[in-house]
């Protein structure tokens, strides 16, 4: 019974090191995807809040599509669509055959795109939650628009956004497991490989579940700390 656990050990013959390394890839993939999502989400939120119809329409369509369509479909779109475009591009320069996209970069861009759709909602809600008086006060101080956003609005917006962003981060972390379908050896894929070659799927998927659970718990603490930090000096 217990000799099975040796399979998860860190020494030779153990998969522990490989799993931890894969967990690091999962963390990297999720963190980079989330960070890219800040850019997409910020732009989409600005679009949603815009008074012009065109950016508003584009931003809402982005949100509706990428929050409503299964993430797996989006992943296939980016991976196959991107690879086909890359192959066509390669042909121009005389490359032959099919060129696949690098899995990590594709994963980061895809997760960034999906999480951006969710983050946009968080930023939009947070912006609307900032008291209107703050805008008036900033104007009364003769701050420029950029100064107003940077010094007054953004810090307060962040405070309202952190709980929602924490939820999006948890979503991203779990979504990152889907990137395994395009062959990136992150935690999910590595445990599939381990399960296949040792014929111990139960053990390996339990290990994967435990690692995801640990990452989710530990990173959740960071968001909790950030929330406390951003609410300093706020009387409820």
């Amino acid at each position, binding site marked *: 019974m217990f000799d099975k656990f040796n399979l998860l050990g860190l020494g030779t013959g153990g998969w522990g090191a490989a799993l931890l390394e894969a967990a690091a890839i999962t963390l990297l993939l999720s963190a980079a995807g989330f960070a890219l999502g800040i850019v997409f989400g910020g732009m989409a939120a600005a679009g949603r809040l815009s008074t012009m119809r065109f950016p508003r329409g584009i931003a809402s369509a982005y949100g*509706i*599509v990428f929050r*409503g*369509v*299964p*993430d*797996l*479909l*989006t992943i*296939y*779109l980016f*991976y*196959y*669509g991107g690879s*086909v475009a890359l192959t066509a591009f390669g042909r121009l320069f005389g490359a032959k055959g099919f060129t696949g996209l690098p899995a990590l970069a594709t994963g980061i861009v895809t997760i960034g795109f999906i999480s951006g759709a969710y983050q946009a909602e968080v930023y939009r809600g947070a912006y609307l939650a900032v008291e209107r008086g703050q805008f008036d006060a900033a104007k009364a101080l003769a701050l420029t628009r950029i100064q107003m956003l940077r010094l007054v609005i953004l810090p307060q917006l962040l405070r309202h956004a952190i709980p929602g962003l924490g939820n999006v981060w*948890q979503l991203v*972390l*779990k*979504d*990152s*497991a*889907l990137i*395994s*379908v395009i062959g990136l050896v992150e935690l*999910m894929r590595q*445990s*599939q490989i381990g*399960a296949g070659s040792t*014929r*111990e*799927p*139960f053990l390996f*998927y*339990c290990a*994967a*579940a435990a690692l*995801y*659970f640990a990452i*989710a*718990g530990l990173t959740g603490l960071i968001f909790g700390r950030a929330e406390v930090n951003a609410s300093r000096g706020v009387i409820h």
Partner: protein
Amino acid sequence: MIDPGFLFEIIPTLLSGLPLTLELAGSSVLLGFVLALLLALAQQGKWPVVVWPIRTFVAIFRGTPLLVQIFLIYYGLGQFRPTLQSVGLWSLFREPYWCAILALTLNTAAYGSEILRGAIRNVPRGLSEAASALGLSRMLALRLVILPLALRQALPAYSNEIILMVKGTSLASIITLTEVTGIAQELISQTYRAMEVFIAAGAIYLALNFLIVWALSLLEARLSHYRVRA
């Protein structure tokens, strides 16, 4: 770049996966709701022996990816074939269909129980006190007062959860079930026309989500009919 002819051509093929998507989503949402309600109610009592195992179950299913849960049930439990055979459950765990339903059900039950637990807690205390002042038993108060209010309050959050489940059924394609996403993946790998397939399959999911949101908002309006319109 986008070929409209091809787009319309593949829609019937993709729609042939819709019954399976609906079956997976429908049965897991219904079974998951029943389980979620039981879990939420069981946590109203204060017995640690009941509450802690439920909390642990909920934390695990909310804290790990759905894909891991599906693999754990389908591939992981397959390892215990002799045991499952001896208790007569092997015919269930052998089928990707039942494994997917089980995984989706447990997953949505974990999320759903948290939604319902919050909704039950948010029913004003005065109402349950009023119910007991009327001499209603705890069961009767629950059935006539607490649950109707809690369920209505939970509806918006629960409709989000249902949408997530519809999206979640796409993962069943990874364990060989050919629902809409499974068919989409086959089409893409045969034709390499990712854009058209994404648009057609995406439209099916968006239409489905739209219908669900619309139906549930009708239900919500119906359940709120006693409210005075502002």
